[in-house]
């Protein structure tokens, strides 16, 4: 379980958000939504301690993330997988090696086992034959899928998605949504999805947290969101031109 407690973050004089608190239960899928520039990705980076808050805490199974020593933090980070917005693939190595990368450094697996696991991960994201391709030859959607394969290769407990469908055509977006659902169901995983794509939210989320005006404006279940009359949330959903 992840508990976000009174989190406040600013960059210089620019307040990103203040006093943000919410819980993420195990095995649920939560979508964190909000306008561009509302600090959603900043919040995601706090969940993995890639950024530190000005004040507040994040507790992972009761353990305060920001009080861990660096070596403890590195172990905790391995419980997370992150799909970055652009994939964040290493461009000096090919697709296969990108996915094999964590296995080579953090496990004692033999070359045969690594090959088996990487191919299995590639198959899960429907990219069976992409292994030998250089990452520069991959399309936006393929990069995200390879990023997802790399994120799940160490079997994380939590999977963080940063704008998984942004910049993709509707069909590829739908494929990514399908993959997120598939990962949540087949891997017994807690999914945290940063997005402003309401179609994606309605497809994958069980819970929703809405960031607006530098604070957590609303949070609740998907069913509650659908009937909410909270004006900023209604405005956001209306602005996305999506009919619930």
């Amino acid at each position: 379980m992840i508990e976000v407690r009174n989190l406040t973050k600013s960059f210089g004089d620019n307040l990103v958000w203040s006093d943000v608190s919410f819980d993420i239960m195990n095995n649920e899928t939560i979508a964190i939504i909000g306008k561009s520039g509302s600090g959603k990705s900043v919040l995601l980076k706090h969940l993995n301690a890639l950024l530190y808050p000005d004040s507040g805490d994040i507790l992972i199974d009761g353990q305060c993330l920001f009080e861990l020593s660096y070596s403890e933090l590195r172990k905790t980070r391995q419980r997370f997988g992150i799909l970055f917005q652009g994939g964040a693939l290493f461009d000096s190595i090919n697709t296969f090696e990108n996915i094999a990368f964590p296995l080579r450094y953090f496990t004692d697996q033999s070359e045969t086992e690594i090959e088996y696991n990487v191919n299995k991960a590639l198959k899960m994201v429907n990219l069976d034959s992409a292994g030998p391709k250089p990452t520069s030859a991959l399309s936006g959607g393929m990069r995200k899928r390879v990023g997802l394969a790399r994120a799940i290769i160490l079997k994380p407990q939590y999977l963080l998605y940063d704008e998984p469908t942004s910049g993709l055509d509707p069909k590829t977006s739908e494929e990514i949504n399908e993959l997120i659902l598939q990962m949540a169901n087949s891997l017994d995983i807690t999914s945290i999805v940063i997005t402003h794509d309401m179609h994606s939210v309605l497809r994958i989320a069980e819970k929703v947290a809405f960031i607006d005006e530098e604070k957590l404006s609303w949070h609740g279940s998907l069913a509650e969101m659908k009937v909410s009359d909270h004006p900023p949330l209604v405005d956001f959903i209306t602005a996305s031109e999506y009919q619930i």
Partner: protein
Amino acid sequence: MDALRQFGQYSLLLYQALRSVTEFSTYRKNLFAEFIKIGYESIPIIMLTGVFTGAVLTLQTAYQLDTDLYPVTIVGSIVGQSIIIELAAVIGGLVLAGKVGARISTELGTMRVSEQIDALESMGFNSVTFLVVPRILAGIFMFPVLYVAATSTGIFGGILAGALDGILPPAEFMQGARAFFFEEDVVFGFVKSVVFGFVITSISCFKGYYAFGGAEGVGNATTQSTVLSCIYILLSDFVLAAILL
């Protein structure tokens, strides 16, 4: 204030690198790759720089000492000693600030802005151990090798220019060079090359590692790392000369 903040950030990065230098298994592969990139792949440009530096220095020294007051072997003495003490390390360092420094800051800067460094950290890697330590170590170990290449080709360039221009034959050049050859000058040259290797790689790593703001940010980081490397090479050259000579 910003300079002070940057100095603090730079010191912290070096401290983190120093602390993780024992994690050899993490950066072993990258270290050998950097040996190749920083050392082996810089040999052609360093040899070219050395040959022309030695050749031009010989022609200019002969021009300036065009008198019967000195024996012609003095040209070999001046060229040899200047190359060993100063020019091989400093001119080589300035050239490598462009070639090696720019590559390092661009590479790390691109990794930073495309979230590859965040991806490494999120997997549980210490990105400083993985990216910064091997580059600095490769600089420290490879620059003395490049210094040897620059020195030997510099003297060769001097001999060649002296012979082709009819200033002095190779034997007399070497006779003059040997007459003023001191082992401590070579040690001094090696110390300089180690310091320059550290200066260039650490500044470039720092600028690249903390780059921000997309393509423009990477461009700024690269420019700053090259300019700062050149300034600190000249500054440390002066400090070393004041201390060691």
